[in-house]
């Protein structure tokens, strides 16, 4: 109320400034007249009375100023004056202003950009009601594992454990289960002629109610939708899917769409902001009942008791739930479940292993994200990197402003002498820095938007064309962050110059030889700039070394021997299930595809596989070898891939012994298997592997397999793996049912494999127009995607360290130039007294060298410490890699010397006569 009145009268005062001033003049004049009259009544003469009255009043302007200063609007007005003055000052030195704003924009932009991504991946909550009440059961990457006892933390669960928890739980308002991975399905709608691949997510009926997500149209899934397997072909679609594929038609509710050849009814549309629980490269288009798993995945059911552990759980806790108790209860339930499903009597080993199993209840507020797990560490490191960049930019600006403050000392002294208050001058300096910072921040926000889009593009580049829930648009968190960091930046670089100004004396700076005085008393006044330059050297050195370490890590990862030949191989992802092929038809289809594709000019060989030669997530099973006695607790598991003929030839994997899988290995011929070196060496150290037989602990893979050949080891999932893994290759044509399906085709080409893409698509269309190609990429792209985080972190840290280096270089150059300019007088005298130009050059130069030396001396230990912090992200080199540190030192030295050389050379060109007249 009072505030409002004060505000409105302030505004009025500002609007009617002139009228106010006239009124006040009149009032003061009247006062003076009255005073004169009164004094004359007391016997003064007219002249005496007037003089006395004037003395009493003092300057009318001062009185008016005091009156005006009694309201807030005068402060506002003077701030506005400060801003206008600052803008004028900025316009007067456009070069400085441009460099300052640009470096701030880059620094703040980089920070905002990385923060936006962190905000997206780690800080944002799911767009549901009360997300803070959600609890995730563990945090595993998507995947599945066959029944058995997990090693320690349990985060993937079987379906019947869900049913068991559902019936007995008391700690949660509800527990929901959902597939830990998305499923690609082929969808045909009334409006689309051809089937299109879409991303679906299998969820339990209470998924939406537990999450607290309301549908936009129609209804969400209900618990009744997942009561019995295969009975409820209903679908809830995403807003985007409804818009793009169902033409945003409200009558789509209740209409039928065909998923993998089966009719499903669309029952609901989710709102636009809803993306499910997994913040990943792509968000699902469809949510389907968990009980439709067999139909949706076109695989045998995974809902059987003691089945595959493939589900994630999330719960919504009841108010006042003790999470420790809940966690203990869930863990006990999981252990009991495992105990019940082990062979009885329970072996001591199994019992001990079960005791170690636990379920960790984690905040589920931001859902479950594979992407988050992958990028969490790289993003934190990058955040550290961009903060260092911003610090360097701050040091730069602080230095520039100090130099400018020094050159404006006369201006400030004059203002002080004319009666301006110190506070006012300091406020004006801070206004200038804040203004720079805010303009830089605003520009940085724009840069960040653009940069974040690039980053998101990079992070989601493995996607197959779906939409991502990641957004480059700044939300309130991001805006607050940018605002905060701008203010902080302004304080960081503005405080030193402001303090310096506040200590200026009036007298000395106004005397005629002020410049000489300033330059001779320079050592202490140059201390702060020198400290700033040194810290820039230290920070740049750290950044350069970190970037170097990441660059070499990426090189090491890329240049390592993967065990197969990465050049000229095309990887084609297709799915015969989408075109309705049954297992019995597959071998014929494979023959047609391979012979047709191998006829394409430029294709040297083609083959098939169940999984790419290298990918995250592999098929794993135990084997038992005839005539081999396993040691107690020996690990008998191996990776498995199923491949077509000519696989090793196409992939360039060398045969060491025996023969590869060939076209004559058919469904009816004896079952053969190719093993890798590691497996052969482990089980057959005497080199007698060929001809030996084993069975697989995988119910679907029946019979004995005879080892027909041994191939070289290769990398199978993570390029960072250093441990050699066992691998077996089964002929895809000799497998049955679901294992008979191949989803990838590999082609070795004579030239650029990408050029074969069109011909391959044409070949597929010719064989069966309904057989969709889901994705085509080269093997080097596939390998590259497995190193996405490494690429991101190394490319960005190189970019940022170069940015930092150029900022530091500009800063050093600026400070040295300024020092030379200040000492022009002194240098002139030295030259006039007979100093040689070489001596002057050295005098200036050695100052920079000293700063560089101190910087390196501090920088090397700092670099080693930084290296240790990022150790876990490095590959194939030590965090104190001498070559990298040496290269970083060399770079920073080179750049420093270049930046210092030009000002020093300018010093030698000083003409003594001109210099002495310089004042």
């Amino acid at each position, binding site marked *: 109320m*009072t505030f409002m*009145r*004060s505000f409105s*009268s302030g505004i009025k005062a500002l609007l009617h400034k002139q009228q106010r001033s006239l*009124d*006040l003049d*009149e*009032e*003061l004049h*009247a*006062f003076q*007249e*009255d*005073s004169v009259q*009164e004094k004359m009544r007391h016997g003064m003469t007219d002249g005496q009375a007037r003089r006395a009255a004037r003395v*009493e*009043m*003092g300057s009318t302007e*001062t*009185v008016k100023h*005091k*009156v005006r*200063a*009694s*309201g807030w609007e005068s402060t506002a007005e003077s701030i506005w004056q400060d801003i206008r003055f600052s803008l004028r000052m900025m316009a007067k030195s456009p070069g400085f202003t441009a460099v300052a704003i640009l470096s701030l924009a880059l620094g703040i932009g980089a920070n905002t950009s990385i923060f936006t991504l962190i905000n997206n991946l780690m800080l944002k909550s799911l767009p549901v009601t009360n997300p803070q009440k959600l609890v995730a059961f563990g945090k595993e990457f998507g995947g599945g594992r066959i029944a058995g006892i997990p090693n320690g933390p349990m985060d993937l669960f079987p379906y019947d454990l869900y049913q068991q928890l559902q019936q007995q739980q008391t700690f949660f308002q509800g527990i929901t289960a959902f597939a830990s991975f998305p499923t690609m399905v082929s969808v045909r709608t009334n409006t689309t002629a051809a089937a299109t691949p879409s991303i679906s997510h299998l969820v339990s009926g209470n998924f939406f109610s537990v999450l607290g997500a309301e549908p936009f149209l129609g209804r969400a899934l209900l618990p009744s939708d997942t009561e019995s397997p295969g009975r409820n072909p209903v679908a809830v679609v995403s807003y985007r899917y409804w818009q793009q594929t169902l033409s945003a038609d409200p009558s789509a509710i209740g209409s039928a769409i065909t998923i993998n050849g089966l009719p499903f009814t669309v029952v609901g549309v989710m709102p636009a902001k809803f993306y499910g629980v997994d913040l990943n490269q792509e968000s699902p288009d469809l949510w389907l009942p968990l009980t439709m798993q067999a139909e949706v995945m076109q695989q045998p059911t995974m809902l059987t008791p003691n089945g595959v552990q493939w589900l994630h759980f999330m719960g919504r806790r009841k108010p006042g739930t003790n999470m420790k108790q809940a966690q203990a209860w869930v863990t006990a339930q999981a252990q009991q479940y495992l105990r019940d499903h082990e062979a009885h009597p329970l072996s001591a080993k199994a019992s001990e292993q079960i005791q170690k199993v636990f379920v960790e209840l984690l905040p589920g507020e931001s859902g479950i994200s594979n992407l988050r797990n992958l990028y969490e560490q790289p993003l934190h490191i990058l955040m550290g990197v961009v903060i260092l960049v911003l610090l360097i930019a701050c040091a730069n600006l602080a230095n520039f402003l100090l130099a400018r403050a020094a050159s404006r000392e006369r201006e400030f002294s004059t203002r002080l002498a004319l009666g301006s208050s110190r506070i006012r001058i300091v406020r004006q300096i801070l206004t200038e820095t804040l203004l720079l910072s805010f303009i830089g921040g605003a520009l940085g926000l724009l840069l960040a938007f653009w940069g974040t889009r690039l980053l998101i593009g990079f992070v989601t580049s493995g996607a197959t064309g779906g939409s991502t829930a990641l957004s480059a648009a700044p939300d309130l968190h991001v805006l607050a962050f940018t605002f905060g960091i701008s203010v902080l930046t302004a304080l960081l670089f503005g405080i030193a110059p402001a303090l310096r100004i506040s200590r200026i004396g009036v007298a000395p700076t106004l005397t005629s030889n002020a410049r000489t005085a300033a330059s001779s008393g320079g050592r202490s006044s140059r201390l702060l700039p020198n400290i700033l330059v040194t810290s820039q050297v230290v920070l740049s050195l750290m950044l350069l070394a970190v970037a170097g370490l990441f660059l070499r890590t990426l090189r090491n990862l890329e240049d390592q021997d993967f065990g197969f030949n990465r050049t000229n191989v095309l990887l084609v992802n297709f799915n015969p299930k989408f075109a309705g092929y049954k297992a019995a038809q597959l071998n014929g289809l494979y023959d047609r595809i391979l012979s047709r594709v191998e006829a394409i000019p430029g294709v040297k060989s083609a083959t098939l596989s169940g999984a790419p030669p290298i990918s995250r997530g592999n098929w794993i099973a135990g084997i038992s070898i005839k005539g081999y006695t396993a040691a107690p607790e020996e690990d008998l598991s191996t990776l498995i891939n199923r491949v077509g003929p000519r696989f090793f030839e196409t992939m360039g994997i060398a045969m060491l012994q025996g023969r590869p899988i060939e076209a004559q290995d058919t469904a009816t011929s004896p079952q053969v298997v190719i093993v890798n070196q590691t497996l052969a060496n482990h089980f057959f150290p005497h080199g007698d592997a060929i001809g030996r037989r084993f069975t697989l602990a995988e119910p679907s893979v029946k019979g004995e397999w005879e080892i027909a050949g041994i191939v070289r080891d290769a990398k199978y999932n993570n390029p960072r793996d250093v441990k050699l893994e066992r691998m077996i290759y089964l002929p895809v044509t000799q497998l049955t049912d679901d294992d008979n399906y191949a989803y990838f085709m590999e082609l070795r080409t004579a030239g650029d494999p990408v050029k074969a893409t069109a011909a391959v698509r044409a070949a597929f269309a010719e064989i069966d127009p309904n057989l969709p190609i889901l994705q085509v990429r080269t093997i080097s792209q596939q390998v590259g995607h497995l190193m996405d985080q490494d690429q991101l972190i190394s490319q960005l840290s190189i970019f940022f360290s170069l940015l930092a280096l150029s900022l530091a270089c500009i800063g050093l150059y600026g400070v040295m130039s300024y020092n030379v300019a200040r000492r022009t007088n002194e240098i002139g005298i030295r030259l006039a007294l007979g100093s040689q130009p070489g001596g002057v050059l050295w005098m200036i130069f050695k100052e920079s060298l000293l700063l560089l030396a101190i910087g390196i001396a501090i920088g090397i230990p700092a670099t080693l410490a930084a290296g240790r912090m990022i150790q876990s992200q490095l590959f194939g080199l030590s965090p104190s890699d001498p070559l990298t540190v040496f290269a970083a030192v060399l770079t920073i030295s080179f750049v420093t010397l270049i930046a210092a050389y030009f000002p020093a050379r300018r010093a030698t060109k000083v003409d003594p006569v001109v210099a002495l007249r310089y004042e």
Partner: protein
Amino acid sequence: MTGKPSDLIQGTLEMLILKTLALEPMHGYGVALRIEQISNGVFRVNPGSLFPALSRLERAARIKAEWRATENNRRAKYYLLTDQGRKALKEETQQWGRQLAAITRILEA
């Protein structure tokens, strides 16, 4: 009391202005003169403090200003006490009384 007029005690000027205006609306010089007269010349209010104080009071809505004709037919800005001003004066007078009593007690102790 003789000698030079003394400065007003910090913060009391606004109370004195309110008190002066409580008797009748007045223009700036009238206020200054009245304070000087009633205090027998002990307090002399100069324009440099009077007008900012008037402006502050006006801002706080304790007084309001009107242009009126003076006795010698000139235009002058008259200040009037508002209800709020009256209330504020009462409160401040009471508080002043309490403070004065306390100070006196301390000095006489």
